């Protein structure tokens, strides 16, 4: 377990010292919320009906942007090589790394989402489900996005390619996440969607770190 604790502590320290990496996705999210609010016209009712799904898409894109910096710094300064060589379970190290990353991106987005929902006229009864679905959904998105980030880390400009690879894989999470938010905002019970989100997160937690580890090993050969 010590490898997990050490990895999380180290990544928190790096995130704190290189704050821009964590701030950029959140700023991107806030800005796209503003752009969306401005582009929708003055009809508050129509905006409130569309907004839960839209906040979900914006949070998804911000998470996607965030995964771009997940391995890049470590790849460039050689830390990634040590991660692959240290001989302890790579699965645990990768999971710890993604947990630390999620705490500074996905968790912040989740915490900000009720505010974004409020600004975009989401009815009050929809806000807990919006935040709750993002709390379950953003870790799954981080796990899946990390696979694309790991596959493209060695390529000079991997960002757009990583998006092309990861976005199709995000679809099931988006369907149930946005579904939960929309259901709650319209007064229906989002329980079924929450169960599906939980199932997707459980599957991503157990499978994605393997794929990330494999992808990192492939990328380290460049």
């Amino acid at each position, binding site marked *: 377990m010590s490898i997990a604790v050490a990895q999380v502590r180290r990544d928190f320290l790096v995130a704190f010292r290189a704050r821009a990496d964590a701030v950029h996705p959140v700023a991107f999210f806030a800005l796209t919320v503003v752009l969306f609010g401005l582009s929708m016209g003055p009809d508050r009712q129509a905006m409130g009906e569309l907004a839960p799904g839209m906040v979900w898409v914006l949070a998804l894109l911000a998470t996607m942007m965030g995964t771009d910096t997940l391995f890049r710094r470590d790849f460039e300064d050689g830390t990634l090589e040590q991660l692959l060589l240290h001989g302890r379970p790579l699965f645990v190290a990768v999971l710890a790394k993604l947990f630390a990353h999620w705490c500074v991106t996905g968790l912040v987005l989740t915490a900000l989402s009720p505010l974004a929902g409020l600004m975009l006229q989401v009815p009050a009864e929809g806000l807990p489900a919006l935040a709750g679905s993002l709390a379950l959904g953003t870790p799954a998105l981080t796990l899946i996005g990390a*696979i694309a980030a790991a596959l493209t880390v060695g390529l000079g400009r991997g960002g757009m390619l990583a998006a*092309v*690879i990861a976005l199709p*894989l995000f679809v*099931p999470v988006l369907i149930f996440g946005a579904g939960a938010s929309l259901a709650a905002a319209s007064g229906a019970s989002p329980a079924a969607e929450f169960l599906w989100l939980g199932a997707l997160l459980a599957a991503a937690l157990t499978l994605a770190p393997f794929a990330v580890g494999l992808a990192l090993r*492939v990328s380290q050969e460049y």
Partner: protein
Amino acid sequence: MGRFTTWFHRMGSPRWFFDLSRPWLVGFLAVGVTLLGVGTVWGLGFAPPDYQQGDSYRIIYIHVPSAHLAEALYVAMGVAGIVVLVWRMKLADMFIAVTAPVGMAVTGIALLTGAIWGRPTWGAWWVWDARTTSVLVLFFLYLGIVALRQAIPRADQAGRAAAVLAIVGTVNVPIIKYSVDWWLTLHQPASITFTAAPAMPPSMWVPLLINMVGFYALVAAFLVAGLRNEVLLREADAQWVRDWLERAS
């Protein structure tokens, strides 16, 4: 070594494949063209019209085989991906390289024919139904593999990266398969299953079956031809390729 392991190791040798595969190419091509000709003429010209949909249902003779292949080819790539990562077999890597664009094309055909059929039947070119959406996602999954391969300059590394992605993407294929049952929206459940008698009369489903086999054979011919090209490209420096080129020219 047992006979199977010998065969397995031989299979991995590009040269062995190249020497053997020419008759396969001719065979698949002949079977594919013949069956597609028979099935398409029968299906479009002689099968009875549907009592509800009239003649518009006839697009299934193209749509169903291509949609079927779109899923099957992706699963085949996933299996090849495991072979690449576990046994580092060159031929499996080449298989992914050749299959991704072909798979993208058949997925495109499935989407296009589905849209053309949807216009008279559902009243819209495109509907955000679970299954149509999943096939669109499948198209983008193929695109991702093609894009990733093109972005990585070293062939063996591109192959292993694409293998990882193919395995990850294969997780999506069951979601496609079962999405109809999960969300049960507009798209009807599969009409032909292995476990129950089809709801269509034989005069409708026999040409469909013929076209299905024809599509598979034709795509197999494309894949063998593509693999042969890929072998020549990758082994261009080998002596046997130079000898072969000399004899061929």
